[in-house]
């Protein structure tokens, strides 16, 4: 038995602040495999320009697409910054086209520049959970479904995140936000049960930050009910947890909304700022 330094392909390194989890070797292996080791790096994993629907030929080697995208999925273990972009390309696994391959290559180019980055786990002063949820309404040009995402912190360290296309079409941005809020709530509640099993006591109910005022009001008061009957289950689920004081929902301005990076492509400047807050850092200098 030894101290952990390599677990599930993840390099564990001590830093002055705590631990660094990195998949440096794994990233380089993917880049080598994809023949992208000598590509030109870019600063963000996904372009902000809107995709247009053009007649797009199917990508010649669908298996290769699936293998590389599958490999990228595991990389999100330590890289929340690519979670949104990887989820986006995962949506085309069944029939990838040439333009989808361009999106994959963009992620690989981003990784080329940030291969040594990893997730920084720092010492927590208080054992408290807080989450962020966000949605990009009707973002999918093909079917107008929205993209939702959440991010949950354990004090200063991000421990759980997700980005996904919502399963049903939302008729308003509030509805999309509310669905994301329900997903985030379910995750926070699961983590609370996990903390109970781990016998870690937490003082206050976790706060979930949401940047849509409508969705925050919703969780507290049964207003606008007629317009939202079809989101009733999500609605009651979140309302119930708030009423039982298991969670709190608060409003946060979009600028500080950390789950933004899980619901939409961001320009480089704000992406880099968010990445810092996601605790995805370059390795500590020796």
């Amino acid at each position, binding site marked *: 038995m030894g101290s952990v330094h390599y677990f599930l392909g993840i390099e564990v390194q001590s830093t002055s602040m705590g631990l660094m989890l990195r998949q440096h070797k794994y990233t380089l292996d993917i880049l080598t495999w994809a023949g992208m080791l000598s590509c030109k790096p870019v600063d963000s994993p996904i372009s902000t320009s809107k995709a247009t629907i053009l007649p797009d030929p199917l990508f010649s080697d669908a298996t290769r697409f699936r293998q590389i995208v599958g490999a990228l999925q595991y990389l999100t*273990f330590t890289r929340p910054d690519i979670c949104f972009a990887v989820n986006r390309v995962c949506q085309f696994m069944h029939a990838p086209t040439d333009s989808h391959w361009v999106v994959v290559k963009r992620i690989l180019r981003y990784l080329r520049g940030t291969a040594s980055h990893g997730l920084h786990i720092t010492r927590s002063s208080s054992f408290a959970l807080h989450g962020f949820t966000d949605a990009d309404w009707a973002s999918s040009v093909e079917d107008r479904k929205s993209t939702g995402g959440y991010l949950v912190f354990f004090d200063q360290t991000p*421990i759980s995140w997700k980005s996904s296309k919502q399963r049903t079409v939302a008729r308003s941005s509030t509805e999309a936000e509310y669905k994301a809020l329900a997903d985030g709530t379910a995750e926070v509640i699961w983590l609370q049960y996990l*903390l109970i099993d*781990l016998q870690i006591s937490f003082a206050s109910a976790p706060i979930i930050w949401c940047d849509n005022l409508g969705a925050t009001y919703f969780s507290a008061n049964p207003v606008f009910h007629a317009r939202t009957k079809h989101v009733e289950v999500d609605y009651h689920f979140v309302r119930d947890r708030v009423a039982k004081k298991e969670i709190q929902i608060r409003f946060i301005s979009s600028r500080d909304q950390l789950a933004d990076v899980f619901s939409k492509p961001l320009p480089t400047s704000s992406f880099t700022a968010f990445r810092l807050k996601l605790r995805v850092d370059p390795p500590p200098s020796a």
Partner: protein
Amino acid sequence: MVLRLRQPKTALSTATATSSVASFSRVVSPPSHEPLVFNDANRYEAWHSAMHEEIQALHANRTWTLVPLNPSMNVVGSRWVYKIKRRSNGSIERYKTRMVARGFTQQEGIDYSETFSPVIKHATVRLVFSIAVSCGWKIHQLDIHNAFLNGVLDKEVYMKQPPSFVDSALPSYVCRLHKSLYGLKQAPQAWYTRLNDFLLSIGFCASKVDTSLFIFSVGADICYLLVYVDDILLTGSNSLLLQPSFSY
């Protein structure tokens, strides 16, 4: 603390008796690529001795007993898999061989029933890392060698004798497997069940929300154990971790 999950290796006389590989001079240094078939591998001393070691380990583990073939049995095949293990600098660490069962010929309901084996959730790993860092706990890693070979089979599974290691006295017999082998449909599930039973027997509790997380607590001391198939992490308040070994 030592968590020994590997059966102690004992030299069994049967191991030498079963070998029917003719001895002829072998090439000492094998090529850098991995062989695909037995005949290709057996020409090289490194692969040959690795296969012998593997067979001996299987015998020591009492993986199977030879039984007469019965027409009602579904007999699965077996084959060798070869892998060169390299260090991070690319130099060769060892030549690894594995006897695997051709599980794809197993029939559901007859040869296996349950196959699901849980693995730890990513969020749990990160949360436990975060707690360990905050509490200043060391995180230990356990390596389980040949993890799947520890699994106990609850169904009768029969396998052809390994290619070129056929018992010369009983060539028409087949192996009745007692322990699981890599390649069997139920191997991960059998291993998880065995480990789960063991951990519960020594006082761990399984988490209700993530069944690959085990918790051990005595008074104010607590210890967490995370299982990802054969990769195991262990952390907790130190006084407990430093207690004498529990062995299997």
